[in-house]
């Protein structure tokens, strides 16, 4: 259980480190942060961040999945799910 927790944290940290340069307003990043609305980034920039995540974890995240994701927590969960499916 703690293993999952740790892994979750690592993914969460990876994502926040990639989003931080776009976080112009200095919003505190949590699992509940709405990536597009709270950070005021556009959907194209989000797609580009996702591309970095894909290369980092060697997974493919379909555009269809990304368009359903709102929060950082949902992105973390999606990455875990895809990591499991594609490994």
């Amino acid at each position, binding site marked *: 259980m703690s293993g999952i927790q740790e892994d979750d944290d690592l993914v969460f940290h990876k994502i926040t480190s990639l989003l931080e340069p776009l976080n112009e307003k200095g919003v505190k990043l949590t699992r509940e942060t709405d990536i597009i609305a709270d950070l005021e980034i*556009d*959907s194209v*920039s989000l797609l580009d961040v996702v591309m970095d995540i894909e*290369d980092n974890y060697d997974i*493919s995240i*379909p*555009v269809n999945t990304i368009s359903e994701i709102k929060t950082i927590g949902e992105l973390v969960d999606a990455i875990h799910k895809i990591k499991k499916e*594609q490994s």
Partner: protein
Amino acid sequence: MSLFEKFEDKSRLLKGLLEQSPRDPFSVSMDEMLGPTRAMVKGKEIVLAGTNNYLGLTYDEGAIEAACDAVKSSGTGTTGSRFANGTYAGHKELEADLAEFLGYKHCIVFSTGYQANLGAISALAAPPNDVILIDADCHACIYDGCQLSGAETIRFRHNDPESLDKRLSRLGPEVKGKLVCLEGMYSMFGDVAPVKEFVEVAHKHGAQVLLDEAHSFGVFGEGGRGVCERDGVLADVDFYTGTFSKSLASIGGFVASNHPELEYLRFSSRPYVFTASPSPANVAAASAALKKISTDSSMRTRLWENAERIHAAFTQLGFELCAPASPVIAVKLKNKEEAFMAWNVLMENGVYVNLAIPPGTPNAASILRLSVSAAHTNEDLDVVVDAYTTLSQILAKGAA
């Protein structure tokens, strides 16, 4: 008013920029057209350097005459779709001519290039077992085609065959059809895809390639057949899409292929079945332009001379350019504010180019997109270079 809230959020971002801007770059009206490269805008004569009129054929005498004849003989509109009453002899002849020119066995004409991509992609790929892989910088109509298809869609890094290779390698055995979508020359930066490498990677994984040569048809390749002709892989492209709205100087679009199955699209592609066919005048103008392109390469020669001249001049002026010389020459500005200012300077100096700001631009860049035309005269280009010289002086002063 909840339907409109989302527009307010978006327009708020633009509003500040527009308030500072003497002219609105997104609602320019060509009050009177003076020819392929000149128009009157608010009482001022402007050189048009932000079009897609690469070969300058919009005022070609033969095309104008053919369009006028077509209106007189076949009427102003077809009032129906290709699938029903909207297929005339002209549509069939143009399909045959395009197929022959490109060297493919099959071709289908759509009402616009947007619909050709939308129609091809949405009909070819279907959930749950097909996957579409698209270059990250693909045009909106390719993205929309993916959405309409509903199939799983994966982006690969722009112009990066290795990135495509990785993503194709990750696909599981449950995946049946794989459709790779990319463009020849990209419209914003004027950069060109390594089409040969992409085709090799795709075919190695059993994927099929859809190549949109919207901006490169008539422009690249010895015969003007696009980047895939230049790269020697024209026959290896599975689906070649194009538009009449750029080098062919009309309105319409097409998909060409050697796969006989292409014909399935005629009843399974919604953007083919459920919209009116291109008008007789559009078809006749495109046919005439195609004949001219296939027999006369002098426009292409002139286009590239103009491109080289402008690219060299801008390089000398110290502008940051987005790609090597091509008919699209994009200058990168520091930010949106500077791009708006620069666009206004060019208009005041008699030159219209396209302002493009994020979102929707590659790498979130703020750019001025200039496109040259074979119809640009030396005098037109003098006006362009003078205006950019003035701009570079203003930018230098601002930086000092």
